[in-house]
């Protein structure tokens, strides 16, 4: 993918750019709002990663100008302020997702991937599959290797969420938001406990792990 990072802090910017390049993306790095805006309007990027606080033109203005000009490239907004107010300001200005500093690189990479390829599974799909695991959305039945798996309603939703984003890392906060519609950072390992329950039903009896832990980032379902 072709990505643009607009971040005034050189250390953070360089690190993000390097990490994303290591993942195989082509990355442009800009340190100023003005340069960022020019690059964003001229180059065809798949995802923009924009910091809120920038010299000259700040992130919010950059976003508004971009959206005002009809540019609909997905934008991941980086902000030092994690409160709802700021998130809403960012989303209103046209951001598609936001990330509060300090963040782990894994979280950033997962969210960039989510932005670039949404939606993967189509809404009208009635069967979701990964390897020998099948989820029938209408009959709400789950089977693996033709054996039925009994899931509680919320376990079903969690598995569906992961399956619809097959191969893409989902972070803890993304799961809390997506499955339970709760947007806060829990101080405990609540999400892990749900994942380990799901694994006990979906993975453990079959000896092969489909739900994978991605260190420092989150979880992913893949073959």
């Amino acid at each position, binding site marked *: 993918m072709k990505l643009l990072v607009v971040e005034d*802090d050189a*250390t*953070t910017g360089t*690190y*993000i750019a390097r990490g994303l390049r290591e993942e195989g993306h082509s990355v442009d790095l800009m340190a100023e709002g003005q340069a960022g805006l020019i690059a964003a309007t001229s180059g065809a990027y798949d995802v923009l990663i924009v910091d*809120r*606080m920038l010299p000259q033109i700040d992130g919010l203005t950059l976003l508004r100008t971009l959206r005002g000009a009809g540019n609909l490239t997905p934008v991941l907004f980086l902000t*030092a*302020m*994690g*409160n*709802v*107010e700021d998130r*809403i300001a960012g989303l209103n200005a046209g951001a598609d997702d936001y990330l*509060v*500093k*300090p*963040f*782990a*690189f894994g979280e950033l990479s997962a969210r960039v991937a989510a932005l670039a390829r949404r939606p993967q599974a189509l809404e009208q799909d009635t069967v979701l599959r990964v390897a020998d695991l099948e989820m029938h959305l209408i009959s709400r039945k789950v089977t693996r290797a033709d054996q039925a798996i009994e899931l509680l309603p*919320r376990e079903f939703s969690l598995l569906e969420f992961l399956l619809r984003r097959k191969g893409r890392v989902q972070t803890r906060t993304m799961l*809390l938001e997506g499955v*339970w*519609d*709760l*947007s*806060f*950072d*829990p*101080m*405990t*390992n*609540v999400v892990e*406990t*749900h994942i*380990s*329950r799901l694994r006990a039903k979906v993975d453990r009896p079959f000896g092969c792990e489909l739900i994978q832990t991605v260190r*420092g980032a989150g979880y992913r379902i893949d073959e």
Partner: protein
Amino acid sequence: MKARIAQLWRSMPVQLAMLLVLLFSSVSLISLAASYAVTQSSFEAAIRADLAQDMVGFHAAPNARAVALLVEAESRETDPNRLILSYLSPGGRLYGNGAIARDDEGYHILSLDSGRAQYSGQYHTLTATLYGGLLTIARSRAEIEALAQVFLNILWISLLPTVLIALSGGLYLARRSKRHVEVIGSTLDNLTTGELSARVEVGAGWSDDLIRIGDKVNQMALAQQASTLALRQVSSDIAHDLKTPIQRVSLHLEDLSGQIQGGDQAALVTRAQEELTGIASVFEALLQLAQVDTGSARARFAPVDLSALCQTLAEVYEPLATEKGQLIMVNVPADRVDVMGDRTLMGQMMANLIENALRHTPPDARVTLSLARQENTVELVVADDGPGIPSDERTKVLQRLYRLDRSRHTLGNGLGLSLVDAVVRLHGAHLVLEDNDPGLRVVILLRLQDLKRA
């Protein structure tokens, strides 16, 4: 109703009116009393003069027989209720229309008719010996007594309208100024709860002093708004300036952990990462507290179904509790229980309470989430049967960064309950920490959303 009347009674215009009425009545009373006294004494003097005049007239008679005849003749034409003439002749015969009798209680005037009835009312009497007989003339004081009634009537007629006009005027002014004071009061309430754009709208017909107070309130609100805005800018700057280095350290550590494979060094990096996460979370929580305290979230308030939110949170934390051998029980109505609020902040508030309960209780503990609807409030309770909080520490735990001695070694940053408190205040709700005997019972009293009005 009673309280409202009492409140009206204590208002300044009513009190002023009362004071004026009291003053006016006192002055009227005193002047009326004085003129009554003067009039009365002049009436008395007139009666006495009349008596003396009468007496002189009888002295003109030549002998006792003539006096007796004169008395008889005159008393026949006289109303005994007005004037009594009585002559006890030297021969012991009584002439006239009344007799003076005396008993232990004093003098009485009796009728000479067969019943010997006693005349009521007071009389002024003058007695003199005349030609060996005893002549008594008594004039009734009835006119003077009637005078008292006349003065009393004057008092009523002059005072009653004054009192009524003054009181109703005072009440009218009081109710008007009460409305104006209420406008100022509700503005102050809004300002107190963080709605800093609230202003006193001075209407026509406001009194000068209230207009001045309103202006002062508006000036204060403007200053407060400016300083809050400045504070928000400062905290935004601080957040950016401090978070950028934290971000760098975090990324360096992540980089480092990727380069080290296992061993003590890896453990050290992990510990440093955990510490950094702790620092970031305290920082984030402080920023969030400051943000909640500004009250700006109120502009986004929408109906939040607490019933569903309780169910969701119980579901989210159930596996975590089960892992520790703890139990989360939910006791909420099956239908919607709506309050006006911010769902994210309410969710975080409840998550903080549940995490607190799970963290500070032993393995077999029970945590209960319950929701009870009352008339127009709803009671949200998170209770556990753990060690609880000593009563003298219950208010302290709401302070920022305060931690109980026994909790120093458990996870948490001492900001969880502060945020709960801030969110509760943001929603105009009430927070009470109670003894669950054993354990802690956190009660949050919220106003129920009126669906008819919404």
